[in-house]
């Protein structure tokens, strides 16, 4: 019996470009013995890619490795390996996926082993777990670790004291450490050039994300958004490759707008948009496509999401600034989504629901991620109160397949979409009465 024919996935030029960039980075990471470049591990929020590039260093992001393993359905075994080694069931599965990956040979997606990091750049931004994660990695690798403490904007403002503190750490701790490890002297003009390049890509990214305001939306700002943020949140911000990627992406979205098309999904163009949703929280990666399908099959498109802001609030005006390079890096770190307090996050969500003409807010609450999740039920109620739009709530995990219950999630989503229908009928009835 032959296998049923799968529809051929048509890849846009930007998709091909991103795939190529990621593959090249993994090839570089796994061939350090040949080219000798130093490797830094660091995190996505507060990621200082431009700075690392000033030292010719490669950037290995453990969250991205966990996501890759999640999407390849390999993370479950890794998490269990870490739990067997004594890590609690209660803690972040990104961490356990990473530690489990080490235990299983530290193999990169290209099938070759990752090198040991030369330095752990602990850019401690918006997530407590980061601090422990790199203490745990340091415990394994016994390698140099440099901490960049980014204060939480607990009172809703970034003060001069916070900014000065971050800049001082960059000048007196981070840069000297990277100089020592790489043997490359820091050149601020080189940093300025990279930041200039970053800002170009950031302009195009914002343009793309804001097309979610259109009807129909030409993008899916959550599931599709995960791909759109890929280059800029990871090892490519500040490179001409990233600029080129966003140029291509923008062209493709411009074309979709001109053709009145909705977003592209794994099953092709999304034909109908019945529900416009704002989503708060990260996605589930172990059943990423199944999860996405639950939306597009019911005609739900995500017009804005907060997850696409964890690596920078570009749509609220932030751009890397070559004229103030270190201050700009500090502002970037301080402004990442989860470094903002709950009232600020609620204001942002309210703005998204209104500006993107959404039917409501859906929260995907992630077991692993207290930084995102603690307080989300209050956020939901506040948004319902302020906008009058219904809220929905599902619970999954980032990369632990044990916490993705497909039937349960689908059931909740369907109920939520019905709630939107009901709300509309209520409005319609009120308007015609």
């Amino acid at each position, binding site marked *: 019996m032959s296998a049923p024919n799968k529809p051929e996935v048509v890849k846009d030029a930007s998709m091909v470009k991103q795939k190529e960039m990621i593959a090249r980075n993994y090839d570089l990471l796994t061939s350090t013995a040949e080219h000798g470049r130093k490797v830094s591990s660091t995190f996505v929020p507060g990621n200082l890619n431009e700075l690392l590039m000033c030292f010719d260093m490669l950037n290995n992001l453990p969250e991205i490795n966990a996501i890759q393993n999640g999407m390849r359905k390999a993370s479950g075994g890794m998490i269990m390996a870490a739990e067997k080694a004594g890590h609690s069931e209660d803690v972040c599965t990104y961490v356990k996926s990473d530690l489990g990956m080490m235990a299983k040979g530290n193999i990169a997606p290209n099938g070759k082993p990752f090198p040991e990091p030369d330095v752990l750049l*602990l850019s401690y931004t918006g997530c407590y777990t980061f601090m422990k994660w790199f203490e745990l990695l340091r415990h394994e690798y016994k390698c140099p670790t440099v901490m960049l403490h980014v204060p939480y904007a607990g009172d809703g403002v970034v003060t001069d004291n916070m900014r000065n*503190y971050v800049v001082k750490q960059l000048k007196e701790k981070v840069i000297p450490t990277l100089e020592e490890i790489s043997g490359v002297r820091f050149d601020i003009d080189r940093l300025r050039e990279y930041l200039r390049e970053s800002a170009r890509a950031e302009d195009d990214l914002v343009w793309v994300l804001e097309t979610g305001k259109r009807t129909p939306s030409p993008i899916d700002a959550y599931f599709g958004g995960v791909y759109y943020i890929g280059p800029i949140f990871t090892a490519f911000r500040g490179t001409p490759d990233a600029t080129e990627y966003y140029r291509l992406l923008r062209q493709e979205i411009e074309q979709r707008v001109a053709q009145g098309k909705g977003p592209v999904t794994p099953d092709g163009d999304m034909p109908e948009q019945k529900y416009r949703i704002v989503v708060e929280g990260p996605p589930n990666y172990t059943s990423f496509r199944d999860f996405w399908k639950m939306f597009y099959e019911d005609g739900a498109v995500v017009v804005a999401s907060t997850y696409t802001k964890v690596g920078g609030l570009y749509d609220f005006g932030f751009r890397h600034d070559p004229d103030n390079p270190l201050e700009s890096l500090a502002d970037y770190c301080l402004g990442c989504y989860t470094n903002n307090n709950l009232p600020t996050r609620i204001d942002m969500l309210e703005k998204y629901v209104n500006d993107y003409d959404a039917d409501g807010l859906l929260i995907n609450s992630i077991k692993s991620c207290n930084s995102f999740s603690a307080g989300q*039920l209050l956020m939901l109620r506040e948004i319902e109160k302020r906008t009058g739009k219904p809220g929905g709530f599902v619970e999954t995990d980032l990369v632990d397949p044990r916490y993705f219950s497909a039937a349960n999630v689908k059931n909740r989503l369907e109920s939520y979409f019905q709630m939107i229908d009901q709300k509309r009928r209520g409005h319609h009835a009120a308007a015609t009465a």
Partner: protein
Amino acid sequence: MSTAQIIERCQELFDDLNFGYAREWKAAGEGRKVVGFTPVYVPRELIHAAGMLPLGILGGGDQLEVIHGDAYYQSYICRIPRSTVELGVTGRLDFVDGMLFPFVCDVMRNLSGMWKINFPGVYVHFFDTPQNFDPEIGGRYYRHELEELKEGLEQLGGREITDAALHESIALYNENRRLVRAVYELRAREPWKAPTSEVYLLMRAGMTLAVEEHNRMLVDYMAAAQAEDRPRRDNCRTAITGSFCEQPPLNLVKAIEIAGCYVVDDDYMLVNRWLMEAVPTDGDPLENLSRAFLEHSVETSCKYVEREQDKGRFLVESVRSSGAEGVIFAAPSFCDPALLDQPMLQSRLAEENIPYIALQYAENSGQMQPIREQAGTFADSIKLWE
């Protein structure tokens, strides 16, 4: 006064979820204000110097039925924020004028934002502490944070906090920390004279009482404990770690002792011994508090340890200095700081041949039999095999 009488008073304070003492303290003088704080560390000296009462809010324990609080949190989040919310929304904290949420973890951090939304009339401040311990970097940052807190309290109280008042408050808290350490030393030396079920309540009383009153109580307790003749048991000596934020139910504290473990060190309510040396009472008080934090504060999971070789050193030293024979990792369920740290600390203990066990709890855990069995087996194994 006997230990029983002192502990009875502590138990009353512990059981009172309406915070009658703090309400009475506030009502006793015009314009008095109460400032609550959650674990782990805030400089209580600043609140005291502002003429206010610092009030430790350590969750609702096992006597508070959480109804509203559960509507704020998913099932996989620890219990202390939900019982704290319960205390707030049921009006039990309606007399509290300010709330400080010091850095511990993301859950407590986000609780500060929830408080801002739920209680707009209250002064709410997320109090950050540095993770960089260089006086010129983290020290400078922290000095400004202290200044900001001072200004916030001055605004709340409508009066200036003078250096003289701060020096006086620092002296009082120095004395409090000295006495707390003395109680801990007494317990480590003669644990049968100062059982942890008592020491715990004595320290909890310090979260509520005015520092002057708590200091007197500590002195009285030590005098009474020294004077009383209590039977010495053939228990093993253990240190508890991981309980610095959400507190275990009192029955768990007792169960560990009943199972045959003298507790000779712990990390309950670390705020009362966070600073390990006396803070100078002259010069710039904020600078002094900052230096004390950078140079003489305890190691716990919410602080970054700069050098790998130092990770867990503090715990090992506490085991050595208290004469503990083993360590009980007692962490609240879903506590990121304690649970993420645990494997690293355990590995360090293993290197030092220090035995350990691990258990988890919630502040409302009710079933103590498994805890007793686990702790009892641990005690037996130390007694029989070590």
